[in-house]
């Protein structure tokens, strides 16, 4: 039976090492989700940092292979992983790197821009609360 065909992102040319890295980061993200659901935030953050580093590696390899749309996916995922791990500075930097690409699709540009602005706002709120609590 044939499948419906649709618009997907090309993954032509990815090799076994790339697939292994995709699998590894997915294992880490699932483990992080489970740990977070079990209220183990620190252990979840450790997994997310590992996943973020793999996503950055996958992003670079996609750029090298000419898979630009897929590179943007891994870039946005890296930003999300850094943010969930609590490293807002790194996450915002990854978003800014993405926004610097003139061929970033408009819908994704809008999403990345909004995400980076949210992170900036949350970071400011978090710091304000930290200062208030330390001053009490």
């Amino acid at each position, binding site marked *: *039976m*044939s*499948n*419906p065909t*649709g*618009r*997907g*992102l*090309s*993954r*032509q040319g990815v090799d076994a090492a790339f*697939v292994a890295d*995709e*699998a590894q*980061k*997915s*294992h880490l*993200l*699932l*483990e992080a*989700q*489970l740990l977070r*659901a*079990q209220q183990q935030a620190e252990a979840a953050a450790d997994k997310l940092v590992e996943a973020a580093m793999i996503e950055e590696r996958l992003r670079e390899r996609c750029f090298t292979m000419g898979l630009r*749309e*897929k590179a*943007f*996916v891994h870039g*946005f*995922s890296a*930003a*999300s*992983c850094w943010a*969930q791990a609590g490293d807002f500075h790194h996450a915002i930097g990854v978003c800014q790197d993405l926004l610097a690409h003139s061929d970033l*699709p408009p*819908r*994704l540009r*809008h*999403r*990345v821009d909004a*995400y980076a602005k949210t992170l900036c706002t949350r970071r400011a709120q978090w710091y304000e609360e930290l200062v208030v609590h330390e001053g009490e």
Partner: protein
Amino acid sequence: MEHTHETYRLEDIDQTHAIGAALFVPFTIVRLCGETSAIDTTLTVELRNFGDFSPPQRTLHLSWSSASIPTQPLGVSDRVITEWAACGIACVVMTLYPGLTVRAVAAEGDRFDYWVDDGQYDYGLEVSGTLGADLDTRHRAKVRQLCDNPYGVDGYVVVVSFASRRVVLSFHRCQEESR
């Protein structure tokens, strides 16, 4: 209505998909057999927007080993159990019907849960489970969510009712549906 019958061993999702799907197995078993020690069940799967896939209504006989039945509490909320149980079912139906691999966990902000692929192209997959019986409202909401993805990719939605043992698997061309 004509039904076609498939069988599948739940634990096989770990070999078929690339994301470490073995993690879903205990959650799926808990939602499907509750407090009992059942080792199989039957689900009705409805395929939507699958072109020449016929018949669109399928009967899925799902089995698992008694060794896979959790003996300890899973230690997470009921909502998490239901969502991950649905992910286990999604892995089964993505193998059996479109024959796609669940390749990667999507990022928060992607508006779907997983990336699936046919070896050449990546598509989105949004999954949701419910303890209620009203799948259609849930399905509509999940289609809207999938089609709001920032990449403009097409994809699949799987919704599972554990109350009625019913699954809907559908394909969506998001550019068309978001117009």
